């Protein structure tokens, strides 16, 4: 085990896979020479050279389009879209082309590619650089969607995403980039589509993703210490494929469930999970499913306003205190 930051784990995973497979190539804005604006890809240019690690113009459609064309013809590209907010400028290529080509051609076209992006708020960048947009991707048939919460998961899941034969949208939560954690040394590859019970508990299940996982864990500690409520926390990790097995089993056991989402209210993954749970665990539920989300507003920039908008530890604690009596 080595201690790495969440950001360092990104480069570690990419390097691990580039060493293994020369078909893995990487492109994006300021990713090579500068090592990425979040310093997530430092060292890759030096190790793998400018033919495999390429700086691009500000042309997101060309970036993901190039990744698609390369994937169709034998490579395993990784494309960086600097902020997930910029998905909006290349959304056609992602949703209408990458997500649909295999299906439309009934399997003639393979698309083993990864689009990595910095997602989410908490860094006072304002409404156009802070969105949590994992639902945009989840909504589109044909995309796999992963959003890790720890450095170890970044390494393991990014490696798995690169090896996956299908297009994977890989959300790195920018508020977590500085977090440190133990990461297995040597080759480390995790599996997509597995949720993780990160804290056991019998009274209520908290479903969380990305930056909401550490907050849920902190809330769970407070609830245990102050209220004697045992919260089990599930890190959903992968929205597509979705590990409904683990989730439904845990929810049936605890009979209570709260989702914690960084994204705005409407049509979030929490709503999807709520609808699955309420349909399939109807008779096991002891209380209504409660969703904690950012309100349905564009994110404000000022720190107090932003902190108030994104679900906080205390909001999680108070909500659960109120609902679980």
């Amino acid at each position: 085990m080595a201690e790495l930051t969440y950001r360092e784990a990104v480069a570690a995973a990419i390097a691990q896979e580039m060493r293994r497979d020369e078909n893995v190539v990487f492109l994006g804005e300021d990713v090579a020479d500068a090592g990425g604006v979040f310093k997530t890809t430092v060292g890759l240019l030096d190790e793998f050279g400018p033919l495999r690690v390429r700086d691009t113009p500000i042309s997101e459609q060309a970036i993901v389009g190039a990744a698609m064309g390369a994937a169709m013809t034998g490579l395993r590209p990784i494309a960086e879209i600097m902020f997930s907010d910029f998905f909006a400028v290349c959304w056609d290529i992602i949703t209408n082309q990458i997500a649909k080509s295999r299906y439309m051609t009934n399997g003639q076209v393979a698309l083993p590619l990864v689009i990595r992006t910095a997602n989410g708020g908490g860094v006072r960048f304002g409404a156009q650089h802070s969105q949590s947009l994992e639902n945009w991707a989840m909504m589109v048939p044909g995309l796999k969607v992963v959003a890790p919460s720890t450095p170890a998961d970044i390494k393991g899941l990014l490696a798995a995403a690169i090896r996956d034969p299908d297009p994977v949208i890989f959300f790195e939560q920018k508020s977590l980039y500085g977090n440190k954690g133990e990461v297995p040394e040597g080759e480390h590859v995790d599996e997509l589509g597995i949720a993780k019970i990160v804290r056991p508990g019998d009274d209520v299940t908290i479903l969380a993703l990305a930056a909401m996982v550490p907050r849920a864990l902190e809330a769970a500690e407070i609830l245990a210490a102050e209220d004697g409520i045992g919260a089990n926390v599930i890190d959903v990790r992968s929205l597509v494929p979705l590990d409904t097995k683990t989730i439904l089993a845990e929810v049936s056991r605890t009979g209570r469930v709260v989702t914690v989402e960084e994204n705005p209210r409407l049509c979030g993954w929490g709503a999807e999970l709520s609808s699955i749970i309420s349909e399939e665990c109807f008779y096991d539920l002891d209380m209504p499913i409660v969703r904690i989300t950012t309100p349905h507003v564009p994110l404000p920039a000022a720190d107090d306003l932003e902190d108030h908008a994104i679900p906080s530890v205390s909001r999680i604690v108070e909500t659960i205190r109120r609902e679980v009596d």
Partner: protein
Amino acid sequence: MAKKAKSKAPAKSGKGRGAARLNDDIGEEKRLEMFQMQLEVRLLENRANDLFLQNLVKGTIHLSVGMEAVAAGCGAAMRKNDYTFCTYRGHAHTMVRGAPMTGVLGELMGRECGLLNGKGGSMHLTSVEHGAMGSYAIIGAHLPIAVGAAWSAQYRGSGQVSVCFFGDGATNIGAFHEALNMAAIWKLPVVFVCENNLYMEYTPIADVIPVEHPAADRASAYGMDQILVDGNDPDAVFRVARDAIEMARAGDGPSIIEAKTYRHLGHSRADPGTYRPPEEIEEWKKRDPIPMYRKRLLDYGVTEKTVSGIEDAVMKALDEATEEAKASPVPALELGHTEVWADGGSAWRN
């Protein structure tokens, strides 16, 4: 480069020097190939039209009747393992790569024998085994994708070239700009081919661009040469395409070719095309590439027998393909749930 190529082209046809011309830089074999390609496309599209009227082709279709010379000229200039990327108006570009008529008609008819087993439809013809890497129905999207295939070819050192077809209307969408720029800076082996048929759907292209040539007048913005060609002359198209492809293959970067041509029919089956002046249509019908090319072949000394032999063979093959497609069942309903993922399925949960 293109200009040099054009100067090598025959100035005028004439019996006397026919054989010499036939065996010029293009040669008889290529010419007969291009004639056959055009014919296959024309006859198949007319057939598709009939089948549409019989309600055997559903949805919509976008025909290139009148524009076949562009696909034929480029197709004849490509190598077997080069890549084609085209649009919803992509029957021609897919067929000239060798995709079977049964597969094309079957797809238009939503049958199991279709190239995409009925899942994609007429706007998305693809035959990866023939290098036809897809027909794309969102304007402009496939230009960056073609650039990606060229990047891959460059990286793998495979010597493949990516040829990307699109319309005059596509030159006004953002993806066009991004694709050309990236291709240029990375010197990628890609040839962009704009089929300027004067209309974007129902609107004359001249109404919505501030330059005369929608593609060629933008080439310099990406450090490329202006290449204009008569899109109704397969030989002319062949020559510029051959040179551009050679340049791309040699590592000297991308080109953009603007081929002026015309669609005889409406934009799609829903469109009678009445917004166009009748004289304009008449003028262009006089320049129908197929009779013109047929005449050229005869002028150059190809026998009537050879030519009509090709015509008969194509018609026969088409009739067979039509029957095969008609006989093919509709796709099994479970196909609706396959091939979202590489594991063959569509499960999003466990």
